[in-house]
């Protein structure tokens, strides 16, 4: 009797686990079904199939500008977070500064703080400084909430690195920056991609900070869905959600294929 067989989970546990996995996918399936449904509420079996809601979303300027705004914010804040976060993580990794443990905690603090508190704090701060509704203000707010993910993944990737590899590059004639660019950066890249993906998704997902800071004319996609649900449900929300589900699924599968994304979670 091999020891793997001895420890194998039993049928009861396996069945429970698969039920839980199904529970996790349930609302996803429902949203997709609703997007193709002719009725504004869901029935089983569906009353009829239509692509009309997708057409409505893709021709609605409100949705389109919200999608654009979300993408600008997500791309911009991820880029800034990557540059600032990797630089900071690298300095922490090289242990040239005192109190690096306290500094790390500070960089991670936005994760601990309830997002709604960060939101209202920035609302007051931006109202006083006139940044409210500005793109710069929004970008920096998103950097605050996304940068911990980049720092965390950069620190994790760096900690697995043999310091001698960078020293080897230095002795072979590379300047400090060259050694980082040619050796360290390529080696931590897979971990950074995972961190960037988390950062991107966090920005794209965010309501509790964004909702306090946007101007009436420029909203993001999740804030738009959030407010339209308060107004009353329309299947076009399901259609735009389905588009997001599709995009998320594709990105996840690509990241898994290319980098083995599940290792970085």
């Amino acid at each position, binding site marked *: 009797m091999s*020891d793997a067989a*001895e*420890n*194998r*989970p*039993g049928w009861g546990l396996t069945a429970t686990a698969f039920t*839980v*996995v199904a*529970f*996790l*996918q*349930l*609302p*996803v399936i*429902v*949203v997709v079904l*609703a997007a193709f449904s002719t009725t504004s*509420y869901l*029935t089983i079996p569906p009353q009829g199939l239509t692509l009309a809601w997708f057409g409505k979303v893709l021709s609605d300027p409100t949705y389109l500008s919200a999608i654009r705004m979300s993408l600008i914010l997500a791309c911009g804040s991820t880029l800034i977070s990557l540059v*600032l976060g990797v*630089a*900071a993580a*690298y300095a*922490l990794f*090289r242990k*040239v500064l005192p109190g690096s443990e306290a*500094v790390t905690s*500070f960089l991670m*603090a*936005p994760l*601990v*703080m*309830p*997002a*709604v*508190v960060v939101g*209202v*704090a920035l609302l*007051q*701060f931006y109202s006083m400084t006139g940044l409210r509704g500005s793109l710069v203000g929004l970008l920096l707010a998103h*950097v*605050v909430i996304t940068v911990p993910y980049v720092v965390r993944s950069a620190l994790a990737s760096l900690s697995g690195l043999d310091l001698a590899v960078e020293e080897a590059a230095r002795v072979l004639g590379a300047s400090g920056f060259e050694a980082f660019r040619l050796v360290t950066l390529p080696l931590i890249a897979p971990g950074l991609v995972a961190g960037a993906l988390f950062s991107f998704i966090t920005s*794209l*997902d965010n*309501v*509790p900070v964004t909702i*306090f800071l946007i101007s009436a004319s420029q909203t993001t996609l*999740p804030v738009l*869905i*959030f407010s339209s*649900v308060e107004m009353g*449900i329309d299947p076009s929300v*399901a259609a735009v*959600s389905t588009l*997001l589900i599709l995009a*998320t699924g594709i990105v*996840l599968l690509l990241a898994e294929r290319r980098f083995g*994304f*599940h290792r970085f*979670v």
Partner: protein
Amino acid sequence: MMSRRQGLLLIAPLLLVLTGFFLVPVLMLLPTSFGVYEPGAGLVNGAWSLKNYSQIVTDDYYREVIWRTLGLGFSVTLLCLLLGYPLAYLIARGPERWRVPLILLVIFPMLLNLVVRSFGWIALLANRGLINNLLMQLGVIGAPVKLLFNFIGLFIGLTHIYLPFMVLMLVAAIRNVPRDVESAAATLGSSRAHVFMAVTLPLSASGILAGSILVFVLTISALVTPRMLGGPTYQVMATLIYDEYMQLLDWPSGSALSFALTFMAVAIIWLSSRLTKRWAGMA
């Protein structure tokens, strides 16, 4: 190699951004939380009071919301633990070929937009939603059961939202339990159930604690899901803060509530880290 000055230069930009756009704004809420707000007139200049804090403890409505928030935190954490452990155990100890697909199915809903997931639960739980329709078609119930805008709705929705976090923490914890130790217990005559209770469970305790703290803190801080599934009437602390700011414009009261919420989150994290340290000391 790298000098202290170079290190400082690398870390300074991020420290500046976080100081200017996180630390300072949060600290500036502090004076606001002692301010006095007159409905219709706004902030009263120069006046200050402790009322915003005292009302959190004395006012019946605030107290109800706080207890509700904490109650949700505990129930959601418990349910996540009960649902998450079997799944995490299967991922950590089950057949190799299931591992990656299962992990991806756990990550997928986590990466999915929170608003979209909450919207899915509205479609499921509404009076004319999927569950009520199905039950009525099957003749189990005659009239729709109220599943939204109450405890049940938030309980189900929040459990779904934060379950993946719990599962991932538990997977890491269970995989850290050396299989040799489990095998050793088995060869010493333990039944499978006893191996689990005597070895696996205690050795994964720190992971269980970490996952529970994470889910608890996320749950009591949640804004989007409670708002979407609870509506404007069934309030938790985060939605109350949102309304104080956006609807009532009572910033002093909202900022006091913000500090109360932050205090609760930080206190629970601090307590758990004390606990983990004590465990580590025992090991």
